[in-house]
């Protein structure tokens, strides 16, 4: 059944669709506008063009898809690459300038596809340049057709966002990876900077943990952590009758607490008189511990000890005569004990750096049994040091 042509008219574009209606639909429903179910020909007159674009169903379908797709491209600025576009190349639109768009209708293909050829009069593809406003009118004419559910309701163009895979790699990868690259290189730079920084000196806590033997030297006002005032040793001192405000010795900050001078701090090497010293080392431990016999190891330890003492000893102070000590060294080179061999060495002990270098284990009052080596260390008045294995000079 032939029905009047459908006309969608805009200032720069007039779209005329001619087709036939479906009779049963028209008979069933009382409607002023019969349903156009089949397209026979289409005419698209663009402003400024002498000849309208003409074609059949396939041309129109290609036009609708291309125009709809391009309208989305104008809005988003993202184009599907031409070789990726699924539809036929019958109609293409490409941007040519800020306000210019090129519509190309491939009439060659058009003719092949429409043998009945309603008005194709050119052998070549036809190219029409449109301004944005002209293009918009073409889009709007097609949108009005799409919105008209009485004309070709079967022809629809679903709107869908362009897939990510069509995105050109216009620096997006770089844009995405740059933060990670900057982060990683920043970390590397920081690591490099840390590499050149001096290793922080770890100050071992210098407070000896009181053992039952040295609770007697705890000054009043300081209760060793974990000691109850009622312990028998404290009862002997007679200072536990009143609750004493507990001042916990802070092992990590011995210098900030003046009352912790009981610790053999390097700042205050003078030992309180009558207070037991961490030296000499427990002879039992020394005796029980196996002696290092390997001569190469001994020599290495001897050199280590000599250089350690030489670094610490400032021989400016006048020591008058040779000061001789027996020094016990662990297998790792740490000085774990020493003993003056005569009275003058004992008196002048503070003039030599042995106490400063003494290794004080943190977990108890004495070092764990380990292989040891004994050396004879002689501090000479002329500023020289003499370190020799003890066994050689019994």
């Amino acid at each position, binding site marked *: 059944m032939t029905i009047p042509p459908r006309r969608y008219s805009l200032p720069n574009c007039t779209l005329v669709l001619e087709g036939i209606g479906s009779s049963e639909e028209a008979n069933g429903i009382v409607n002023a506008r019969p349903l156009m179910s089949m397209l026979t020909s289409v005419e698209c007159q663009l402003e400024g063009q002498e000849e309208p674009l003409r074609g059949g169903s396939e041309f129109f379908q290609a036009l609708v898809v291309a125009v709809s797709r391009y309208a989305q491209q104008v809005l988003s600025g*993202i184009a599907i690459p031409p070789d990726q576009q699924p539809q036929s190349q019958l109609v293409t639109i490409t941007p040519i300038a800020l306000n210019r768009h090129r519509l190309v209708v491939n009439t060659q293909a058009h003719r092949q596809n429409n043998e009945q050829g309603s008005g194709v009069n050119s052998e070549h593809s036809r190219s029409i340049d449109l301004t944005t406003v002209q293009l918009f009118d073409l889009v709007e004419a097609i949108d009005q057709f799409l919105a008209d559910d009485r004309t070709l309701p079967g022809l629809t163009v679903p709107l869908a966002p362009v897939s990510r895979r069509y995105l050109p790699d216009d620096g997006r990868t770089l844009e995405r990876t740059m933060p990670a690259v900057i982060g990683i290189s920043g970390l590397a730079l920081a690591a490099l900077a840390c590499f050149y920084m001096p290793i922080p000196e770890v100050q071992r806590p210098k407070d000896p943990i009181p053992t039952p033997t040295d609770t007697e030297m705890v000054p009043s006002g300081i209760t060793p952590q974990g000691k109850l005032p009622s312990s028998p040793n404290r009862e002997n001192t007679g200072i536990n009758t009143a609750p004493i405000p507990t001042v916990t010795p802070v092992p990590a900050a011995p210098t900030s607490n003046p009352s912790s001078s009981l610790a053999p701090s390097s700042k205050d090497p003078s030992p309180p008189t009558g207070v037991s010293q961490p030296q000499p080392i427990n002879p039992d431990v020394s005796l029980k511990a196996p002696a290092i016999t390997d001569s190469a190891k001994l020599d290495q330890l001897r050199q280590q000890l000599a250089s350690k003492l030489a670094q610490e000893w400032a021989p400016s102070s006048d020591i008058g005569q040779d000061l001789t000590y027996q020094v016990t060294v662990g297998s790792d080179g740490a000085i774990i004990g020493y003993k003056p061999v005569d009275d003058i060495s004992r008196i002048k002990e503070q003039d030599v750096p042995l106490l400063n270098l003494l290794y004080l284990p943190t977990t108890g009052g004495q070092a764990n049994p380990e292989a040891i080596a004994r050396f004879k260390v002689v501090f000479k008045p002329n500023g020289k040091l003499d370190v020799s294995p003890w066994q050689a000079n019994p």
Partner: protein
Amino acid sequence: MSVTSLNPPIPDSPAPSIPLVLASLSTPELADDYCPRRARMQIDLLLLAIEALVIGGSEAFLQVADELELRDIIKNRVTLWQLRSTNPMRRLGQRRSMTLLEAKALVAIVCNLAKRLVVTIRQLLIDYQQLQDKQIPLEHHLRLSDYISRFRSYFRARMNPRRTGAYASDEELQQLALTMLGKLLFCTGTFGMQRLWISLFDGEVE
């Protein structure tokens, strides 16, 4: 007495109903319910173009939100400002993001206002084309140069220059202003709102 009878069924609380005007905007398949970066930029720039087109444009946004019954989403000036500040180019960026519903509401406002301004938009684009064809500088066209200079100054006042690398010079901002004008024209069409909405997610879906 049973426990249930103590608590009579509460009448169905109205589900967060989507305003009628937004019903035609489908929700794209994104990883989450938040607007992608480019979409937030686009929406803010379209609003900026409208402000540059008409004096008092920013007042019109809330007025249109009222008319379209979107005030549940765009509650007040502060909400609007916060949403626009999710544009990553802004000087005062927002930590909060823009939900898809909020983006839909702003898209509806943009398209509604663009339709009211369609005559102006069309005329400016036609005039621009004629000036181009005759090689006349845009400064000779009062209305057009006014729009471009307002767009430029709004842009520079609100955007962080370090985040807007591509839009530094006067020329680049003029191009952007004219591009946004063209986009506004496409927003005025029969399916303008749907097309704008879908275009915001170009390149964001699999």
